[in-house]
């Protein structure tokens, strides 16, 4: 492209995710799939670690100049990236596999995600969560946020002191069903759908790597996963292939590249990118509202000034106020 700013940084995509440990590029189970997705798409990006927002769902997010895709908007980072055509893995998915693809994705995103959350926050002793989320925060804040998050996860899973045992059994049962289904689906193939990686592969690989590397050996979930040899091989193979290979320096293949410099989008003449338009009627209304509000402010201000002038002229303000310490002795 010849744009100086772009050549300065190696690709202007930046992924902001939680910290890396346990041998994983980012150890948080919601950030890892996004990382893997970008790797599968062969996009070059920089990773930046965010340590102060352990309890916020806007992390992970992807920045591209002034454009940002947060995880708590429009279905998640991956969905945003696909919708805005920045990085899209699933564009060539055959339409026949779409229903099964969608339900597999839903199964991983609900059953398996819930199982991981349960293991991370409720079932374990909290040391893993501490290491990933709170190790860079001051101790009192970390402790309080950890407690808050544990309570939130329990509420989300519907766990109370009465049904804790049944809930746990149900969570692990669903996880087992999911693993069986995925194992059957995968068979001896390289990827779950088609012969190329899709979003489902990214999400499942993120989950599998987290379970295998971050959870302790006593983890029930890890043991269930280890029973399915083809899933484990799949995870390890893809990890070596995509994650441990040196990051490519290729220019992002996304169609977004076609537009001019992204860091100054407002000067962009490309038809793709316009700032979000407001419906015309609403804009006019807002103009009127603004004028009305301004006039109302002037009116109120005049009233206030009149009252104050009256008070000060006829009420008699105090003259120079000294500090009020009267002399003693």
């Amino acid at each position, binding site marked *: 492209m010849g744009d100086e700013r772009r050549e300065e940084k190696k690709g202007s995509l930046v992924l902001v995710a939680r910290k890396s440990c346990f041998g994983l590029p980012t150890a948080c189970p919601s950030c890892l799939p996004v990382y893997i997705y970008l790797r599968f798409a062969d996009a070059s990006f920089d990773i930046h670690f965010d340590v102060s927002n352990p309890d916020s769902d806007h992390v992970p997010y992807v920045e591209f100049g002034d454009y940002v895709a947060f995880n708590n908007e429009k279905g998640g980072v991956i969905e945003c990236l696909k919708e805005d055509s920045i990085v899209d893995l699933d564009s060539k998915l055959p339409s026949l596999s779409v229903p099964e693809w969608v339900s597999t994705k839903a199964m991983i995103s609900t059953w398996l995600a819930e199982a991981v959350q349960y293991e991370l926050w409720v079932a374990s002793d909290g040391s893993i969560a501490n290491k990933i989320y709170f190790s860079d925060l001051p101790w009192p804040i970390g402790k309080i946020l950890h407690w808050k998050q544990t309570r939130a996860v329990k509420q989300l899973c519907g766990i109370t002191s009465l049904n804790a045992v049944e809930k746990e059994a149900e969570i692990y049962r669903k996880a087992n069903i999911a693993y069986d289904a995925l194992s059957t689906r995968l068979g001896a193939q390289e990827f779950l759908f088609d012969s190329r990686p899709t979003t489902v592969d990214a999400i499942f690989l993120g989950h599998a790597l987290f379970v295998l590397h971050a959870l302790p050996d006593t983890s029930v979930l890890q043991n269930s996963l280890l029973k399915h040899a083809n899933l484990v091989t799949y995870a390890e193979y893809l990890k070596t292939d995509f994650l441990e290979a040196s990051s490519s320096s290729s220019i992002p293949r996304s169609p977004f590249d076609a537009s001019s410099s992204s860091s100054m*989008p407002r000067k962009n003449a490309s038809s793709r990118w316009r700032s979000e338009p407001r419906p015309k009627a609403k804009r006019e209304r807002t103009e009127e509202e603004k004028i009305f509000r301004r006039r109302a402010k002037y009116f109120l201000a005049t009233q206030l000034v009149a009252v104050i002038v009256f008070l000060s002229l006829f009420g008699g303000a105090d003259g120079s106020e000294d500090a009020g310490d009267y002399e003693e002795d």
Partner: protein
Amino acid sequence: MADPSEKDQNPTGEEKKEEKEPQEAGNGGGEGENDDENGEEEEYEEEEEEEGEGKGGGGPPTEREKVQSLFRRLSSGPVRLRVHDVVIRGNAKTKDSVIEAEVLDAFRSASTMQELLQAAGVANERLRRLEVFDSVSITLDAGPPELPGTSNVIIDVVEAKPLTGDIGIFTKPEARSWSLEGSVKLKNLFGYGDIWDASGAYGWDQASEISAGLSLPRLKAISTPLVGRVSLLSQDWLKFSSYKERLLGLSFGLLSTTRHNLAYNLTWRTLTDPTGMASKSVRRLLGHSLLSSIKYTYKIDHRDSHLRPTRGYAFLSSTQVGGLGPDSKSLRFIRQEFDLRGAFPLGFYNSALNVGVAAGVILPWGRGFMDLPSPLPERFYVGGHSSPVCNLSGPASLLGFRTRGSGPTDSRRFIPSKSDDSPTFPGSDVLGGDLAVTGFADLSFDLPLKLFRESGIHGHVFVNAGNLAKLTENKFKDFSFRKFGESFRSSAGFGIIFPTKLFRMEINYCYILKQFEHDHGKTGIQFNFSSP
């Protein structure tokens, strides 16, 4: 030398002013000189303005003679007198030890009548400063007849009502503007002179706060008052910098005198952006942080008036060091502010020239500090509607610019869309600066109408300038004083000032002399408020 009789000379209740007379509990050595005070009943009431003058208030000539002879004796030389006992009356709830702690050491050192009367005044003031009594009065009574040269001190107190509430408009030292505050105070709950208060405040800059505090006049050996406060504060900066601030803090006032102020602050701060529109620089700084800092303020104000200074000078230096404590993950920074003001009277029309200059700098410290950013809420923001003349608030105000209306900015998030419409610029966030300098000159004068003069309304002409620069994250390499000087924002104008009891209002016409891209300065008529 008149013989003091055994008569009671105390005009009961008439002239019991609010005085306290420190008294020693008779620890002095047995120096009871057998003067004519032997076995006398004398009561002296001390007025604060007149030392050692008892008012006999039109008694019989012998009384007057007695009093006059007493004065003669007092003025001729020291009259030896020591304190035998301190009697405290009227304190149903307050512990004796609290009152004694305030007054005893003042009485301890008095060994003559004159010193005793002086010490009484001091103790009076101290007890009044506790703020838990409605009235205090001290009388000196003669000591027991068998001990010559002694006197008893009787302290009568009337305790204040325990519960008070009030509403008002205040400026707190940390706040950069004024706020409407309502508070409820519980005085002397446990009898130690403790004052508990709970208050809620709503500030002009969209800040709301709930806090509760405790102030103790003294804690065991520490003789300065201790103040502790827990507060929950929420401040909305979405319009200017796209973040919302929530603070849960604990602060302790360690030392507080007229000139010095030392406070420790432990705060859990959370910065969030519910709109998701923040710029990259602000987005990187969102999240939780722990602030553990000590702030020392030195302030002298020798100007003749707070509403309209015409002569004198004032100086403020405020140092805040953050990151104290074993945890290396709390925010580490050093923030220093200076503010110097001077007022010079000019001869005509009661006019005066006020000039001032203020500067501040904030820098992080610790390993790799040159790459670290400074914390966002602690940076300097120049702009706003409060007048710089009266309050010493550091480099903060620049008339003519809106709140946070100048300095470095960053463009907000860009939201793409697919339809063909003209792009609207998303706006920019004000980031504040690490180095700030402001200055002003203000000439105030009386208006010709006598009506205005009497009510204190006067006019003024002013010019002010300010600038901000970013030094952190390696930007100091690009910094040069020449560039900094060339990029000063400035404005000038004139207006009328209405000083009222609650606040000082100005109606000004401001003309912006120089502003830069992304600044929000507007030429026109403005209202500026400041707290007296």
